[in-house]
């Protein structure tokens, strides 16, 4: 297992920056150069996507930010308060639920680990399940849920501690398109309501453009930042999904992605 990485919590970080990466790189023990070096600032309340081909180090980057993997070079700073355990929520590509626990107990886990009093914890679990539309499934076991519902539970678990930063690692990649669109919309609604900083990893151009305010395009391994595309569209709904504007952004992102992969191939 990876050693817990020292991710500096910085109260003096320039007040509107939530996450700051400086020259962050990762070489795995087996010699694989997985990431970087990359520089990245994420503003508070911003929704960004990391877009790149499979194996380019997106998950590695996210795990480094979460402190689950130690960077081999560079530094990571996260703005936050002392209660670090509460300040990051993580959603994995798989739902990663405990099969032996009910939906309620799965969502309760982070609070239980933080010794939150039972009544308060139950109330917050109830709220989180309400928010993802699973209130009546609290006593169900994960195996009885569909893939989309499991992902919602995973999202509720990440939200239950009311983290400042939400890290999502291709959370909807394994779902069918209808479910994915639905969850995309729900995620945006949550984000607008909760005002969290979101870093969303995906290999889908369409998803990244639809969701985020800024798309970070990464090169193939070792992942570096090849381009940034600001998506300047306030309304994110079905109209946006079918608009010419959306199509143009998607084209720009696709081209950037192709460039990033090409540049890599030639180097």
């Amino acid at each position, binding site marked *: 297992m990876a050693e817990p990485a020292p991710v500096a919590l910085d109260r003096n970080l320039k007040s509107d920056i939530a996450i700051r990466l400086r020259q962050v790189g990762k070489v795995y023990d087996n010699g694989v150069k997985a990431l970087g070096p990359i520089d990245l600032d994420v503003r508070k309340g911003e929704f960004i996507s990391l877009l790149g081909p499979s194996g380019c180090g997106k998950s590695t980057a996210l795990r480094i930010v979460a402190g689950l993997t130690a960077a081999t070079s560079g530094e990571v700073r996260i703005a936050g308060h002392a209660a670090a355990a509460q300040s990051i929520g*993580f959603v*994995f590509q798989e739902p*990663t639920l*405990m*099969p*032996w626990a009910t939906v309620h107990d799965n969502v309760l886990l982070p609070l239980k*680990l933080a010794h939150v009093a039972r009544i308060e914890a139950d109330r917050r679990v109830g709220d989180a399940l309400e928010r993802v539309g699973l209130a009546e499934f609290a006593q169900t076991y994960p*195996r009885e849920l569909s893939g989309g519902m499991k992902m919602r539970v995973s999202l509720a678990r990440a939200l239950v501690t009311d983290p400042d930063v939400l890290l999502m690692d291709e959370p909807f990649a394994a779902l069918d398109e209808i479910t994915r669109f639905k969850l995309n919309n729900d995620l945006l609604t949550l984000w607008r309501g909760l005002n969290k900083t979101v870093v969303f990893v995906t290999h889908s151009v369409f998803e990244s453009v639809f969701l985020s305010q800024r798309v970070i395009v990464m090169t193939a391994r070792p992942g570096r930042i090849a381009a940034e595309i600001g998506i300047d569209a306030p309304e994110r709904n079905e109209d946006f999904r079918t608009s010419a504007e959306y199509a143009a952004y998607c084209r720009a992102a696709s081209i950037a992605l192709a460039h990033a992969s090409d540049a890599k191939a030639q180097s």
Partner: protein
Amino acid sequence: MSAVEPSSLRTNHERGALRFVLPVVVLTIGVLAWDLIVRLNQIPPYVLPSPGAVVRTLISDWPILWASLLTTLLTTFEGFVAAAIGGIALALLFSRSKWLEYSLFPYAIILQVTPVIAIAPLLLIYLPQHAAVVVCAWIVAFFPVLANTTLGLKSIDRNLSGLFQLYHASPLQTLRYLKLPAALPYILGGLRIAGGLSLIGAVVAEIAAGSAGAGSGLAYRIAESGYRLNIPRMFAALLLLSLAGIVIYMVLALASHLILRRWHESALGKDS
């Protein structure tokens, strides 16, 4: 081959009934054949007693056999509990320290592959008899628990571990809320094997101790009846031993099913 294979049966219910009825039919036929052979050939009871004679002995010798059964079950139980605790504790230690695992695991294997029947006489020299019997039961039974628990602990979802790390779970919290529940199906599988094995261990040690003369378990009764050519009692004691083994297995299988039925594939029906 019969025309109706179990797989072609329409309902689960019919299949369940058959799985119960078929062995009973086989048993009945076997007992009848046994009885017939003894009668037709007029075999004397000191060579092969009839099923009726075995049952009669079981009833007439019940006080002795019952006391012996309790003795054997007690040592089996003690060996089983020791194997369960020892196996799980060792596996947890190994999962925390590679040093410990690398230094001790080979010896766990050596203990497992050395036939216990060869170790028992030695143990009887160095330990009081009851302790020696329990240790024998432990030696045969702890390895499956150790091996299965180790496997279970190694199969824990990497991302779930990451989640516990993310939320700064203490080692004790991780043990209680992640490692033990995740390894539970494996542990229960190991315990199911260990139940039968601790009975075997207890029996082997009793037989080895039997010649030393102080034992009183079922295996000792079998050995003793053998010396005295009391063959019906041998059979009666053997019958009790088998029944004890079956009951132990069924109790553990049932416990495992009840514990896992809410969530684990092994305990779920095909359609659920």
